[in-house]
Each structure stands twice: as C-alpha cells, then as structure tokens.
C-alpha cells in the first residue's frame, strides 16, 4: 500500500455503517497501519442517510477533513442510489461496492456517468444465512476488505475474531455467526 487508501461509506442511521468504519479502522490498525475512522455527524435519526469515512496508510495521517475523492465507496443501503450521488469524486481506479439483490447492470443504470469498477453483494442473504438477523454492516465490511485488497484475508479474519471475542464477551454464541458472515461475504461479493 503506497498511498493512503480512502473509503467512503453510505448507509442509513441504524444500519451500522459508522460501526463498520470504526471496525475497519480497528482491524487495519491491528495489522500495523495508521488509520482514521470517523462518521459525519448531523441530526441523527434512524433511517436518515449517514456518511462515514476511513483512511488507511503506512504513514501517520495528519489531514482532518472529510473524504471527497475516495478510492472506494461502500453503499450499505441500495435505496440511497436514488437520492445521493454516491460515486461523486470516486477514483477511476477505485471501485464501488453495493449491497443489492440486483445484477451489476441494473445498478450501473442508476450510477450516471460512472465508468469505474462495480461490485455487488446481497448482504441481507449473507446476514440471514449466517447471523439469522439482518446486520448488513458485517458482510459489507468483509466485502470492502476483499474488493480493496486492504489486507490479507487470513489476517483480517484472525483480527476480526479477536475483535468479536472482545466485543461479544457476554454473548459468545454470536461470534461464530458473525465470523461465518465475513467468510461468506468474501465469497459472495462479485
């Protein structure tokens, strides 16, 4: 990783996009990187569009602004494609990852003038099959790690397991489901 990788997350309040950005910062930190993970705060309400950001770098990060020209964009909620210009400023060499049941071609029709790479994943299906409830952020986190080649897969899974063990110390029964969600998401994203 030569330059700082910048990622922008689009989600809706309550879907865990902010948590996913913080988890990504966490896991990248564990693999020795300099990181930033931060949400853009506004009048927060369930269902309102929210944006969160990550920077991952080999060098200390000094900039403290939002991200306008991301390398990657993650769309946790497909309905945002109708109202938000999610590919705005997105690098031509980067990619967008969308949580959807539709094929890529359908999604591309909604991304006007976008010529970069696109990946899709049905995060609902992954989440329901592994966790048993709809938590789109866990599959989307694994998807962006895979798409961006942000770290080695085994490193990612190892650090996420440690992180889940800490986070779910009082409900260890959910760890396996979350780990399976990560693994399945890495296979499903395409």
């Amino acid at each position, binding site marked *: 990783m030569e330059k700082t990788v910048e990622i922008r997350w689009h989600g809706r309040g309550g879907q865990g996009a902010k948590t996913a950005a913080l988890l990504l910062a966490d896991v990248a930190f564990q693999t020795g990187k300099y*990181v930033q*993970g*931060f949400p853009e705060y506004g009048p927060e309400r369930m269902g309102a569009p929210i944006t969160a950001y990550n920077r991952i770098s080999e060098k200390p990060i000094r*900039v403290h602004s939002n991200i306008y020209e991301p390398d990657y964009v993650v769309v946790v909620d497909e309905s945002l494609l109708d109202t938000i210009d999610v590919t705005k400023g997105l690098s031509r060499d980067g990619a967008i990852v969308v949580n959807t049941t539709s094929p890529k071609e359908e999604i591309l029709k909604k991304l006007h003038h976008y010529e970069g790479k696109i990946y899709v994943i049905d995060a609902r299906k992954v989440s329901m099959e592994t966790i048993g409830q709809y938590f789109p952020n866990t599959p989307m986190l694994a998807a962006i790690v895979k798409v961006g080649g942000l770290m080695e897969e085994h490193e990612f899974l190892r650090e996420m397991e440690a992180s889940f063990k800490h986070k779910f110390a009082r409900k260890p029964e959910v760890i396996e489901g979350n780990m399976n969600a990560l693994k399945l998401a890495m296979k499903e994203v395409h």
Partner: protein
Amino acid sequence: MAKRERLSGNEAVAIALRQINPDVFPAFPITPSTEIPQYFSTFVANGQVDTEFIPVESEHSSMSAAMGAEAAGARSVTATSSCGMALMWEVLYVAASDRLPLALTLVNRTLTGPININCDHSDSMGARDSGWLQVYAENNQEAYDNMVMAYRIAEHKDVRLPIMVCQDGFITSHAVENIILEDDETVKNFVGEYEPEAYLLNEKQPMSLGPYAISDYCMEAKRAQAQAMHNAKQVILDVAKEYEAITGRHYGLFEEYRMEDAEYAVVIIGSAAGTAKDAVDALRSQGMKAGLIKLRVFRPFPGKELAEALKHVKRVAVMDRAESYSDQGGPLGAELMAAMYRNKNTADAINVLYGLGGRDVRVEHMEELYRQLERGDLPEGYSYMGLRE
C-alpha cells in the same frame, strides 16, 4: 512501556483521566456533555479508579461541585461542550479568581444559533477572559498529552489557576486514530499527588474562601491573578520539557512547522493544523516558502513569542474558528495583530474566519489560502474561507 493504540479523542482523554485518578469528577451526564464522563463512569463502576463521580443536574452545578471539591482539597475535574460550558459561565470566573487548579476537559462545539452540534471554538473563545488557562490539540495524541500535563501546570505554586483542555468536537473527539499511551505508572508518577498548601478541610488552618472584596482589595486580587497567568508560560514550558524527557514528544506554547525560511505563514488552532501541514508540504514541493504555526496555548497568550516567530514572513493569515462580531475579525486575529504591532512586527497580516459550525476544512482550501497570501489578493480587514457568499 508506552503502548500503541487506536482511540477516539474522547476515549484518549478518558484514559488519561483514569491514569490520573482524580479525587472528584462531577459531570452533567446527558447531552451536551461528551463521552468522556461516560467512559470515565465505567472506570468508576469497574473499580479501576477511586474517584467520587457525581452526576449532577446541570453544568452550573458540575462546575460548582468541582470548584467546591477543589477548595476542600481534592483534585477535581469536570467535562462539557458547547452550551454546557455556557451554563458554567458564572462559576468559571469564581474558580479562576479563587485560584482553584481544577481541570475542565472541553470538546469544542458551536454555540447556538443556528442550532448546530459541530465543531468550532466559539464556546472556549468566549471564555477567554474568564481567567482560565487554555490549551488546544491538533489530534487525539495531543489531547491525551495535554490532559496528562494539565494538573502539573495548574497546580504549580506560581500558577494555581484552573485549566481548560480543549479538543475539536467530532473531528478529533469522535474520530478513531493511532495514538501512543504511556503506561499507568508513568502517568501516575509524572502527575504526582495533589498537595494543596491551603484547603478548607484542613482543621489546623481554618480559612475562608471567596469572600467579598471591597474596592480597596479587589483590584490587587485581579492583578495577582494576571501575574499567575504570566507565570504559567514558563511553567507550561518546564512541564513540557519534563514530559518530553519521558515520552519523546515535544511541546511548546506553539508548534512551528517549516517556518525557518517561510515567507507565507498561517497561524491556526486545533485539528485543521494537520490539514494545513499537508498543504504546506504540497506547496513547498512546488517551490513556495510556506510555513505554519499551530497555537497550543491560547491562555496565557504567547504574543511576544509569536511576533518573534513571524518576524521574517512577508504575509501571514491568522485563522479564527470563532466570530467575535466585533466587525474586525476573530479573537486570535485581534490578539495576534495587537502583539505584532506592540513588538514592531510589520508583516502584512490578515484575519481569516473558517470552519464555523463544523464547516469542513480541506487541504485544497488551505493551499488556495497560501496562494492568495502569495498573490496578496486577500481582502483588507478580515475575510471568510469556504463560505458561499
């Protein structure tokens, strides 16, 4: 052993406070308070500190309780943000004039209106004449380090003033970044025990505190307060030197970034300094002699030192993240330009307001500002950066 971590600014300051283990921490436990007392209350619940944590009914009460505890002889701290600080207003002055070295960890956020929760410096800048020491941070590391150094400065016998440890709301308070934490024992030994010379719970030395001062005494008391603020400058430098010997991290009254031969300079406070450094590097690689001064200590104000550091620049932009509504710019602009005049620094200085209500500051904004400095085409008086006219 120092430990590599990744934390939000709120977590970082809460951990510094856990390591300091103050005696009393009164705080208003709901918005507009910050996550700092929330994190700290879990340390209390887990028995990691033996601090008396007092959830109070308002910020006026939290500052009053912190002040009372400090007067009794306990090392105290409270926390707030924005309008919470506004509600402390009356008591801020009392704490300072009673010479109580308590700490306030402040997350800088806009004062309404329009209603807004995001970062600017209007809360603490409004309190610049309250008699408190004020230190600011660029990032989580500095917020942590400033908190660890705070009591050593405030409690020093030549100072004895309350201290405000400020960081930028959301931009650093809610952003997770890399940080180095010193170990608990190192911090504990560095901060030391609080041993006040005079305190209310000392039965062997009865005293009264905060009595009425008739006109015949009031002015001398204020003068003594001003002297303490003057003395603080040297104490801040001494404490920083000692801290550097332990941590390797250097602090002064302000940081000079690529100022050696700078012709065009920016003076700024807080998180936007990091963004400005990236702009300086970019412009330097294009041949412009750009430099930056990041002010860490606003109270006491290092006017003479700043004027000296800006001696050789052609043009300087003084950046304010708070309006004064004086019709001539913001507080840093007014104070720094006065200091330059007094110290016979005749560099072309302009005042620029930025980032109000959390308006984002980008590297590109800073680069354009430096180019304007070079061209000399900034408006007379003062101007706004990143504004839609």
